[in-house]
Every structure is written in C-alpha cells, then in structure tokens.
C-alpha cells in the first residue's frame, strides 16, 4: 500500500504526534466528526477497541448483538442524519457478517464506512485463524475498499474512505486493517481528502442538456415526474418542490424517494412500481414526457421495459453516468447533482398548470380508493388490516415520525399509507430487500435523529431475522417504537404462492413464539392487540411511552397487497385485485 502515502502531493509541514495505528483509527474518526459507531469486538480488532476504551467520552460505541445489526444500524443512522454511518468488526466471521449490510448500502447508495480487523500481515494467505479475504469478498458490493498493512497508511486511507463514501453517488466503503498495522507506530497527521484523481464525484452539467430538457418540459402536454432518493441524498427537496410548483407537473416517487415531498403536497401523485399507486403506473404509459429525477429505473419500478413509457420522451436527471441508458433510454440526460441541476433549470421553465392531465391522476385515485384503499384503511371485515395500523400511526404522529420498515407486505403497506411531512423520514431496504433490516436500522435511525419519533414496522418473519437486536435496545435504552404486524405468515411470499403458484403454501406459514414474553425478557414495555377497538389506544400508549416500546398487532392472515404489477407485466397492466 505504499502508493497511498506516496501520492499525497502537498503535505503541509505540521507537527505530528507519535501513536499506534489503533489510536490513529480513532483519531481519524474524530477528525471526520464521527461521534457514534456501531460494532462488535473480536481478536483482530482488539487494539482499536482498546483505544476506544480511552476515547469513550468522545466516541460512543454501540455494541450490537450481531455484526449485521451494526451495518444496518449504521445505515439507519446515515439515512436519517445525512452523515456517514460507521460500523466496525473483527476479521473472519465478523467481517463476513457485514456482507449483507454492505450489499444493502451499495444498492441503496447509503454512505457508510466499515472498518474490519484483519490477521497480521505475515499471516495473510496462510488460512490463519479468523482470516478471510474480505477485500475479495466485498469487492463487488463496495464503492471502494482497501486493505491497510502499515500503520502509517491509516490516516490517508481513512480520509479517502470517508470522502468516497459521502461524495457523488454515496455508497459503502470497507477498510480492512491488519493487526500489525493497528499495533504499529506512526507520526499522526490528518488531512481530509479533497479529491481522488481517478474519480469524478459529480459529473459536469452540460448547459445544452438543461436547455434541451427545458424545451421538452415547456412543450409537454402530459408531463410526469418520477423522483427517487437522489433528491434526498442531494438535499434537493426545496429545489424539487420549487420545480414542481412552477411547472405544475404531477410528481410520483420511487420507494426510496418517499418523504422527499410531503404526502399532502397537491402535486404528489403517489408511488410508482410493483405495489405503487394506480394512477402514476397507468399514466406512465400515457405521459408525453417522463422526467426521472435522481432515480435509476429499477425493475420493480418499470415492470416490462419493452412496454415502459415507450410513447414518452425521457429526461434523466442523474449523478451517476453509468445509470444513463442502463435500463431506459434517455432522450436528454442532465448530468449532475439534482440540487444543482434543478436549481439551474428553474429559470428556463415556464410557469404552467396541467389541470386536465392532473385530473386523470385524480380519476384513477378515485378508482383505487374504491377498490383497494377504502378496505385497507377502513376494513369492514373482522380481522385487522395492516393499513388500519398505519392509519392509526398517522393519526398519532401527524406524519412527523420516521418510519423504518422491513421487507414484505408490511413494507409495501407502510410505504403506501404512511404520511410524511419531513424528508429523510422513510428508512427501508429498497434495492436489496433485506429482511431483518428494520429493527437494527431503527436503532440507528433514532440515534441519527434523536429528536424525532421513530417507528419500526416489521413483519413476523423479518423481525426474527435480527430479533437479537432487542438486546441492543435494552442496553442503550434507545426509545424506538417497534410494531410487528403479525400474520403468522411470510406474507409476501404467501401472496405470490396464492396468485402465481396455485396456493401451494410451501414453507411460508410461521409457528411463532410469544413475542410479548421475548420483549419482556429484555424489559421492553409491550402490548399485543388482536381487536380493533383496542388498536388506537395501544398506538397512543406506544407513542406516549418515553422508552422503547413493542406493539404486536395480530392482523388478518391472508390479506394481499394491491395494486400489483405481476413480474414481467407492463406498468399499465397493474391489477387492483
């Protein structure tokens, strides 16, 4: 790794301090403004933990119950705070347990720095105890990764790691540090990384692309916006709102774009994609101009690409050049950070309204309300629906809460029905679909936004994948509110079995433990609700509770989430039942 230090061109002459590599790791974190990390100790990272002991007043360490939990907590923290999440673990199994969280952060563009210990450099490649090639393993799922074998390389590599994780399209970075590098001595000096020669974080915006886009926008009769997480990552919520309001263009969102625009905004027309709203999916195939803003045309958004928005011109506002024409061909690509490009295009677009076009969304909304939403939010059947739980949470929190969801039916219901007034309020595993994400992510989400109410919505399946993090909640007393929507099924898989596999419910029925007793074991206040008349009071009690709270709601076992675009179908073939 000689190259890392050698390539620093202008090293200022500043007084240095002698210290170990392990201490340097802590000092680098402090220099990056990190005051909170998630992790789990072990042999190969012990020198760093030993230094952590010394610095515990400045750098708070949260001991999760599994390394996967540390990564998801770091992700939750990053998503609500807008800062880089940091997770730390030992070599071997500690490092491999990071893999799911890293892959999740990569596909959902979450800024995260993962630090792993590694066996001593003289043991590398000898199949030593707890040696694993985490650099090789994590290569395809990191934005960048690097192994450090010399103490003096630690500051440069960590500075580069933070810069890469947070700049441009953010992502996870892994730094693997051998034990001898942690024990070794160096003259510590920290300089923040300001750039990497081979990496252009934000591509330049061609003025011509803005003009071409503005021309299409000004000439469009039926324009539609689909915005994604790029708006939140770029903190471009205000710019998006100004753009929407000036142009009068109806705006739909992807699952990760949710909460960038308040739910109540008149031009917010709902979610696109597999379980999105009826109108925006149907009208994707009728619009004459599709404005994709900070989104990447995931297959769950587009359905069959052969029949996706073929009639429309497409303008793609995007920071990552590799996304242009990857799935959907753009007639105009506006490269750059959407905060910048949306601000620049604003003076070029005409003030406009699209009343009759907008009415088409409203007409579809009315159909969807009648066929789906009414029964989901106000069910007439005896069994509780997931939707009415979300409605109850909306009523108690007035849309001010951060909603963390896991993966499955409850996630789709949460994203469809949760109401939001503020950005950075929807934390979910979008691209990877990681069951078990929500409980640890909620811990991080609350620590990243301590003044906000954080409610985790989890299914009975995903809950049990990381249930051990109740221990972290108990130990840290972090006041997260946990809602398990229990249908004793892996509901989304069961729904697919019902619809596409002739109701052959292979291994989707769950025989569940007594979740209340488990919560009680961790001394977390808890309630189980089986009847509608008790629901609202229970939600109110949960929200009013000052500490963590566990609420189990036993919901109807075989409800389905609609609307739905079957896999491989066109967005306009969206089904209401």
């Amino acid at each position, binding site marked *: 790794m000689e190259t890392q230090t050698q390539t620093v061109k202008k090293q200022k002459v500043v007084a240095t301090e002698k210290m170990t590599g392990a201490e340097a790791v802590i000092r680098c974190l402090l220099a990056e403004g990190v005051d909170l990390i998630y992790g789990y100790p072990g042999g190969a990272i012990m020198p760093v933990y030993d230094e952590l002991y010394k610095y515990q007043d400045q750098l708070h360490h949260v001991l999760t119950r599994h390394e996967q939990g540390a990564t998801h907590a770091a992700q939750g923290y990053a998503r609500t705070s807008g800062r880089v999440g940091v997770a730390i673990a030992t070599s071997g199994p500690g490092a491999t347990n990071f893999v799911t969280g890293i892959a999740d952060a990569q596909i959902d563009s979450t800024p995260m720095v993962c630090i792993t210990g590694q066996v001593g450099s003289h043991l590398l490649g000898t199949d030593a105890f707890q040696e694993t090639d985490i650099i090789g393993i994590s290569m395809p799922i990191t*934005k960048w990764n690097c192994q450090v074998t010399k103490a003096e390389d630690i500051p440069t590599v960590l500075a580069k790691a933070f810069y890469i994780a947070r700049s441009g399209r953010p992502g996870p970075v892994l730094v693997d540090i051998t034990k001898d590098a942690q024990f070794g001595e160096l003259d510590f000096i920290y300089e923040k990384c300001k750039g990497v020669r*081979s990496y252009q974080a934000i591509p330049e915006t061609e003025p011509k692309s803005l003009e071409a886009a503005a021309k299409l926008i000004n000439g469009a009769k039926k324009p539609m916006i689909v915005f994604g997480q790029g708006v939140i990552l770029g903190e471009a919520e205000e710019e998006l709102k100004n753009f929407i309001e000036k142009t009068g263009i109806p705006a739909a969102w992807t699952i990760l774009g949710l909460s960038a625009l308040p739910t109540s905004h008149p031009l917010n027309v709902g979610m696109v994609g597999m379980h999105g709203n009826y109108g925006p999916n149907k009208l994707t195939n009728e619009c004459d101009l599709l404005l994709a803003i900070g989104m990447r045309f995931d297959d769950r958004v587009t359905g069959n690409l052969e029949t996706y928005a073929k009639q429309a011109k497409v303008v793609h506002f995007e920071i990552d050049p590799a996304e242009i024409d990857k799935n959907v061909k753009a007639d105009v690509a506006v490269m750059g950070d959407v905060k910048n490009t949306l601000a620049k295009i604003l003076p070029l677009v005409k003030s406009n309204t699209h009343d009759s076009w907008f009415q088409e969304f409203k007409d579809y909304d009315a159909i969807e309300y009648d066929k789906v939403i009414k029964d989901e939010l106000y069910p007439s059947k005896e069994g509780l629906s997931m939707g009415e739980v979300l409605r109850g949470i909306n009523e108690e929190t007035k849309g001010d809460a951060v909603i963390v969801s896991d993966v499955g039916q409850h996630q789709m219901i949460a994203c469809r029905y949760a109401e939001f007034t503020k950005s950075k309020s929807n934390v979910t595993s979008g691209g990877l679909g990681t069951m078990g994400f929500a409980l640890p992510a909620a811990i991080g989400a609350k620590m990243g936004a301590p003044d906000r109410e954080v409610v985790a919505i989890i299914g009975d399946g995903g809950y049990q994948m990381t249930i051990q993090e109740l221990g972290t909640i108990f130990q840290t007393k972090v006041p997260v509110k946990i809602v398990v929507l229990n249908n004793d099924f892996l509901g989304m898989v069961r729904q697919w079995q019902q619809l596409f596999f002739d109701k052959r419910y292979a291994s989707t029925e769950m025989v569940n433990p007594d979740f209340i007793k488990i919560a009680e074991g961790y001394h977390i206040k808890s309630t189980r609700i089986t009847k509608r008349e008790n629901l609202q009071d229970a939600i109110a009690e949960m929200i009013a509770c000052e500490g963590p709270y566990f609420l189990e709601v036993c919901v109807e076992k075989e409800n389905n989430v609609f609307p739905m675009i079957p896999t491989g179908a066109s967005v306009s073939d969206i089904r209401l039942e």
Partner: protein
Amino acid sequence: MEKENFTISVYTENNIGLLNRISAIFLKRHINLDSMTASASEIKDVFRFTIVVKITEEQVKKLIGQIEKQIEVIKAFYHKDEETIYQETALFKVASKLLFEDRQIQNVIKNSNANIVTVTPEFFVLEKTGRRREVEALYHKLEPFGLMQFVRSGRIAVTKDKMHISKILESFGSETV
C-alpha cells in the same frame, strides 16, 4: 444489434484489486473475455488493461459505464477493430531434429515471417506476431510436424485516433491524490 469485436482500453491507477473489480463486471453479466492484457501505459504510474470482447455496441457502452464507475479507473474507451492497430504474439516450441529431418518445415518457417527466438540441440522457439488469422495459419502449418508447446498472448492494440487520457489527468488538477 449485431455482436462484434470491441477492444476496451481501461486506464487505471496501479492498484492490486482492480483486476478483480473489472473482471467481476464481465462475470456478473456472463460476458466471456476473448482476452485481457494488463500492462504499463504511455503515462507514468498509469496502468492499462486491454480487453477484447464480442458483444453488441449497446452492451459495450453499458460496460464502459460500469468500468469507469470504479474509483481507481481513470478512463475507459471502446473501439471497433477498424479503429485500432492490433496484434497478438504467439510462441511455438518445436523439436530441433525436425529441422534436419523434414525439409518442408524449413519452407514453412521461411514463408511465415516468424522470428527464431532461440535454438538449442533439443528444441527451437518461433515467435510470430500478427493478426489472429496469421498466427492461426502458422499453427495449422506447424501442427502436423508436432508442437512441443504453443502459447498465444491476448490482443494488444493502439488506436488510430488520439486517446484523450492525458488531458483528462491534467484536468483533475494537482491538489488531489
């Protein structure tokens, strides 16, 4: 879209893990590499990968996007065969006694534009540089006599047009690492 040969040139920082990152991009998409050569480039401390694939132009454009996305990749280009000057090198190891036993082999060597790299009492080594079909033609001519060993390199290529890599490096400025 028709599949055709593309030569991909990737300029990178000299980094141990990069080969893995780049090959993983092809692996993930089930694209076979016809050849891959890593070497120095015209710029100090900048590496160059020369990769040959047979795919559609749409595919190669997407691959370039994914390759350039890697942090340590400075720039990637793709070119069609007619836009490059390209060569491969092959080595043929042949038993020396054949030279004396069979007149014909002498004629094959004479007409092949191949170089004799070394001669020992046991074997001699022929080096042939050229297009794939020229190397293959020599292979087919020598094969009946019996080859002790044969090896062929991946394609190396330079482009007819300029590569704007130096300009790109300058534009990054000197402040960055």
